[in-house]
């Protein structure tokens, strides 16, 4: 494949211009300012310019720096892991479920363990959805059960058994100290222990979640920001069809 080399664009092709901002834990003085410039240089930026420096009090100072990135990247050689499916619209998804499953698909969603932030799971599951994209509750071929915030993994698994879930959808928003990794691993282990892992389609979403990370943790798919209900639903039905060939 032909090389496709790129570097950041400011106002001229290949000028490499980038901006960054950061804080140093020292009061602002000339040494701090020069330190900020040298740091930018060490980051690989040529001709760094500290365009703004401000003392923030309590021995902290804030910097805005411009510089020229010296690196370039070959896009032709890049492979990105993403769930492979075609995103259908709501009607298309409903039709596919009706035709292939001949029953409603059961989807259980939750923010697990200590996570109390339901904005993500609500955006995907609740009737209204998000940004004009209706949520899974509005799909008449789906039974969408949103368990909400702070659901113990045990309770989620118990509900999944009770409701004969086809899909488990987990949201993790809080990622401080990587707590989401512990939570997600715990759920995957529990499903494995219950012998359920192969029977359910296990999906995780959240602002810091990538498909690659999800696969590493033993999930079938991971979705980040800019994901809507139809993306998740399309993946789920495609995965189900893959697992249940006619």
């Amino acid at each position, binding site marked *: 494949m032909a090389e496709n080399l790129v570097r950041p664009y400011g106002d001229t092709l290949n000028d490499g211009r980038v901006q960054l901002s950061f*804080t140093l834990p020292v009061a602002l003085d000339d040494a701090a300012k020069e330190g900020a410039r040298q740091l930018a240089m060490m980051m690989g930026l040529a001709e760094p310019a500290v365009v703004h420096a401000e003392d*923030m009090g309590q021995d*902290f100072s804030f910097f805005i720096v411009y510089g020229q990135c010296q690196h370039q990247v070959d896009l032709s050689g890049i492979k990105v892991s993403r769930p492979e499916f075609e995103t259908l619209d709501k009607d298309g998804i409903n039709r596919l479920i009706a035709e292939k499953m001949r029953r409603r698909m059961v989807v259980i969603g939750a923010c697990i363990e200590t996570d109390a932030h339901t904005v993500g799971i609500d955006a995907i599951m609740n009737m*209204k959805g998000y940004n004009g994209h209706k949520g899974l509750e509005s799909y008449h071929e789906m039974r969408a059960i949103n368990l909400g915030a702070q659901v113990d993994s045990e309770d989620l698994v118990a509900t999944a058994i009770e409701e004969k879930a086809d899909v488990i959808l987990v949201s993790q928003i809080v990622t401080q100290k990587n707590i989401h990794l512990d939570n997600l691993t715990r759920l995957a282990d529990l499903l494995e222990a219950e012998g359920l892992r192969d029977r359910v389609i296990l999906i995780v979403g959240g602002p810091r979640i990538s498909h690659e990370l999800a696969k590493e943790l033993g999930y079938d798919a991971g979705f980040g920001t800019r994901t809507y209900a139809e993306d998740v639903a399309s993946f789920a039905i495609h995965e189900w069809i893959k697992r249940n060939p006619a």
Partner: protein
Amino acid sequence: MTLLHLDQAQIDRARDSARRIARSVFEQMKPFTTTTVERATLRLLGIDGVDENMVPLPNRLVSHLQEQDLLQHGAAAIVVGAMIESGCTAQQVAGAVAAGKLTMRRHKGEEAIRAATEAEARKMCEHIARQRTRRDSEIRSVGESRTPWLYLIVATGNIHEDVIQARAAAEQGADIIAVIRSTGQSLLDYVPYGATTEGFGGTYATQENFRLMRAALDEAGARVGRYIRLTNYCSGLCMPEIAAIGAIERLDMMLNDSMYGIIFRDINMQRTFIDQFFSRMVNAYAGIIINTGEDNYLTTADACEAAHTVLASQLINEQFAYLSGLKPEQMGLGHAFEINPETENGFLWEIAHAQLVRQVFPEASLKYMPPTKHMTGNIFRGHIQDALFNVVSTLTQQDIHLLGMMTEAIHTPFIQDRFLAVQNAKYVFNTMRDLHAEVEFRRGGQIERRAQSVLGETEQILADIERMGLPQAISQGLFAEISRKPDGGKGLDGVIAKSGDYFNPFPNLMLEGGL
């Protein structure tokens, strides 16, 4: 100030409905106490500390009273009876029970014990009253900012790190520091103990953490020449206990909603209603400003379609607050700037909603929350969304202004995120300081009509709630489209039917007329 033309009779009718709704719940819950109300009572009698397994002594003692089938009489008089008999302090009694050296029982001479219990309780009331006086005198001596007050959150998990960030925030212009709790604390049925350095998404609310932060903010306030208010979270399964330790350590604000725990944390309804009465009574007595959580409705439901549920809930929260003795200026009724930024004229509707709330609650310390739901990784647009939020806040004269962070959708804020947020708000507040007095709402214009229509819907929904009763309304998912049942949720096992001779000294001391 320029005002929207609203029908005062309609506001009065809505408020009357809310009054009857709150009163009906109050009467239904009167025959009950809870384990955490009793633990809070013990804390107010001076019991603190933990056993060798880090279980708080108030928990040990209340569990013991349950085992002895005594809790329904009220913990206070039984413990004071034991104090009189043994000559020990309340703390010593608790320690002896935890060590298995003392078994609680009822003592004879009920009248005398009650009088002694009231005398013991009065000591803590006097301490809390002194803390209240101290706050007033600090404010008089160092001063305070004009509203909107800038409300900033710290949440490192480590109280010592929080102190550093809070000092920096005060220096940058914060008027209020809120220490977010570790995620999950609301579901703990005990209050952790001591200074804590490990937490997720926040720092545990403990009495020692409260004390450390209050001391740091007093010092910072003296330096910057502004009293810095401290906020924490009086919610979850330990509402009354958090109120007690907050009152003791001179917190200034508490998130303290009458329904938030039910709806968003699936805490049992009865438990929450009982706990909020007691916790609000303590907050009222301590001069603490409560913050309610109506902003949360708008992150779950649509901000335009659910606007009337915010106002309805505020009116209910207001009436519950009155029942617990809170004054209007202690009511930080919450709402938020959460309309989808793609909505045509969305900014007009934000003004309409914020101004409507301002006019319905002219004396309240309104709490206005920044955009969160529609914040994205585009921090540059996010900074503008926050600026527009700042405009509405100053234009409609909000009181407690939670600063929006441009990195809202990304991570817990970096120190520079807060710095830039303060700059943004100060710039807008200063440059538009008197704009509200210079412009008028067009009579019959879009903003006024929007406010009138939300008010109309509010009156209607409150009439519906009154007809079915609040528990049934919550069961039907009227708030935030989330349904909770009266017997569902966590903490129902902590609801205890009072016996006929139940006694608690604090309502008489803290509340005119008693609970």
